[in-house]
């Protein structure tokens, strides 16, 4: 009996040690992120009509059909399969809330999907970590010349194209025009100007009008709970302070100017004066947009043609939402960060899957029938300069015009994922009275610059 016990314990011991050895052997694979035997070759040509099964993870980038998430995506796949029956596409819908975390875990455990449709903020980071398959061989010179260099800057790592751009649109503010019509203050909005540009003083006047004439409506909003939607707060402060978030070469923080500090102080004061939403430090971008969609907020900071289209079914009361650029301190032209969406391929070390994924991406973006249809379904503008007039709507016409204000976004900076985690705690510090606007922005700059330097060193490795 003692011998049997001893034997059993030995088996258990071997099992535990064995599990560690297995762990070690798995890590060997992880240290080299996906073998790339043929990835450098034009993969689309490698496997002409080989059967393949690929997985596509998609955020809800397309508007839903009949309120069913993923229904439109299934139609794309069905149409694709008419041309490529040999490629099976498995669709998995992920959410903007939990999707990024799910992707991080999948990448770390070598179970990343083959195709992803996302924005440069994450895609460029994966590209820099050499997790993506280059798409150079499926981007024709015609397409390359038809997409603005600013968009390619957000889709490439060095000379490698890691994201095929599909849709775009400038990120802006929005106003509940119906409220201003009701209070007879429409003239306070810059809607009669073709480019709709305006100053902080004009904006403040409009907010005061709402406060006085429609006390049940909160004039404007701000949020600082988490990183989601931080673009809105960045652009708000940068424009009101006539500064940039990062320097032009993305090598350091540029937002910590005196004017931007004053802009943040203005937000704090506006909150105290009840012209900006109370409790901004505990509100997320989605909370503020919800207030706007419920008709309880006159202005919201995080809007775009894409969000405007997606919000149609989310409005709790009917009102006219109109796009506006961020006001600037001196009335100068605003700088708007672009929304850019595109598709990328994770290099999972299987050339056949990469080739099949490339065919799928090419279909989604360039198919004569589905290419335009897909852009329209996102509610955005085409990333291609030549593709215009997709919508017969004055707001889209304005969004097209506002493309002139687009600036390069900081999302492509080295260490961006880390940089943005320092942003909202410093906003909270200012909002809760722990620091002045300038002090908070300086503290952010110090931490972010360190993260950029560290990330640059890692990329250089």
């Amino acid at each position: 009996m003692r011998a049997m016990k001893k034997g059993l314990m030995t088996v258990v011991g071997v099992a535990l040690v064995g599990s560690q050895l297995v762990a070690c052997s798995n890590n060997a694979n992880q240290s080299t992120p996906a073998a790339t035997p043929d990835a450098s070759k034009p993969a689309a040509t490698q496997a002409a009509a080989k059967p393949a099964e690929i997985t596509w993870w998609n955020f809800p980038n397309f508007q839903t059909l009949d309120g069913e998430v993923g229904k439109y995506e299934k139609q794309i796949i069905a149409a694709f399969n008419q041309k490529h029956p040999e490629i099976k596409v498995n669709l998995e819908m992920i959410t903007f809330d939990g999707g990024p975390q799910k992707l991080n875990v999948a990448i770390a455990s070598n179970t990343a999907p083959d195709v992803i449709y996302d924005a440069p903020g994450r895609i460029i980071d994966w590209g820099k970590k050499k997790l993506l398959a280059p798409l150079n061989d499926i981007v024709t010179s015609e397409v390359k010349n038809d997409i603005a260099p600013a968009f390619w800057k957000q889709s490439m790592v060095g000379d490698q194209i890691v994201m095929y751009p599909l849709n775009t649109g400038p990120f802006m503010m929005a106003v509940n025009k119906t409220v201003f019509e009701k209070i007879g203050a429409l003239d306070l909005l810059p809607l009669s100007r073709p480019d709709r540009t305006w100053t902080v003083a004009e904006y403040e006047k409009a907010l005061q009008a709402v406060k006085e004439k429609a006390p049940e409506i909160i004039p404007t909003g701000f949020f600082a709970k988490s990183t989601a939607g931080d673009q809105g707060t960045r652009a708000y402060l940068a424009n009101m302070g006539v500064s940039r978030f990062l320097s032009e070469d993305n090598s350091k923080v540029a937002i910590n100017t005196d004017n931007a500090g004053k802009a943040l102080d203005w937000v704090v004061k506006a909150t105290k004066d009840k012209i900006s939403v109370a409790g901004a430090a505990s509100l997320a971008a989605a909370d503020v947009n919800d207030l706007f969609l419920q008709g309880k907020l006159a202005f919201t900071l995080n809007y775009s043609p894409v969000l405007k289209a997606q919000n149609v079914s989310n409005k709790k009361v009917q009102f006219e939402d109109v796009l506006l650029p961020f006001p600037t301190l001196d009335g100068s032209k605003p700088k708007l960060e672009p929304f850019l969406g595109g598709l990328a391929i994770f290099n999972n070390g299987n050339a056949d899957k990469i080739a099949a994924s490339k065919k799928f991406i090419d279909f989604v973006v360039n198919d004569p029938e589905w290419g335009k249809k897909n852009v329209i379904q996102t509610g955005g503008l085409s990333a291609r300069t030549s593709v215009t007039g997709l919508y017969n709507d004055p707001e889209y016409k304005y969004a097209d015009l506002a493309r002139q204000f687009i600036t390069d976004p900081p999302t492509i900076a080295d260490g961006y994922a880390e940089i943005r985690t320092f942003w909202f705690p410093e906003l909270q510090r200012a909002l809760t009275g722990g620091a002045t606007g300038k002090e908070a922005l300086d503290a952010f700059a110090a931490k972010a610059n360190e993260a950029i330097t560290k990330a640059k060193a890692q990329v250089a490795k």
Partner: protein
Amino acid sequence: MEAAVSKSRKFVIRDWLMSYIFLLPAFGFFLVFVAYPMLRGIYISFFDYSLRNFDFIGFDNYVSLFHNETFLKSMRNTILLVVIAVPIVIVFSIFVAVNIYKMKEFSRSFFRGVFYLPAVSSVVSITVVWGWIYHPNYGILNYLTGMLGFEPISWLGDTRTALLAIIAVLITTSVGQPIILYVASLGNIPTSYIEAAEIDRATPWQIFLKIVWPMLMPTNLYVIVITTINTFQCFALIQLLTSGGPVYSTSTVMYGVYEQAFLLGHFGLASAMGILLAIVIGIISTIQFKYFGSDVEY
């Protein structure tokens, strides 16, 4: 005689084997879902394990944590959460249990159900409800304080109130199980002890301190240890209500682990944080076993 001994040994071996066979599935689950992840977590904590790298760095993750202001603040918040919430949970649970125990069967069942409801409800739904209660613009709490003439407070957006607001939610979700356990334990205390004390003219407070409290020691130990561990691991509340803010004032070690691993992809650093938390929980549990352990039997 020899045949009988051999037969009995055969039975013993068969029983012994059978017991191990029945234990095997549970042991298998333990290995796969507890032992392996735990050992792997320790292993990973010695690596710079991010989306791209897997480089051995020894104790660097641990060393960096002791220089990481956010981690130290999270550890401080976690300990604060335990120090404030656990005693309140214990005192409140005993107080409620003693009062419930005195009631008639119907009322006793009703109140047990009322207090146990949050324990069986989804933490996420309860937290979302609390999020609405605390909402700075249209939360019911500000509505009520407004009726008393107070200015609206941003309960979760103010560094002075955020942690307390979290603690209040934590307490409401934590008291259900202890109350049930205490009510059950009170029923196990022999009534003759209390009757004898009453004959000796002991006050209710003396009866509680000298008889009830010592007799509840085994339950106290269990409740204190479990509540402490659960409080150390508090995550969903923080994630949903404050995301660790404002200015890290509600960030806990568990939230830090999530942030480092799943938001930033620093799995090595997150593992080191998890291991440190496990060590702290281990030390505190050992102390609790030492001071609250007792051999009371009834």
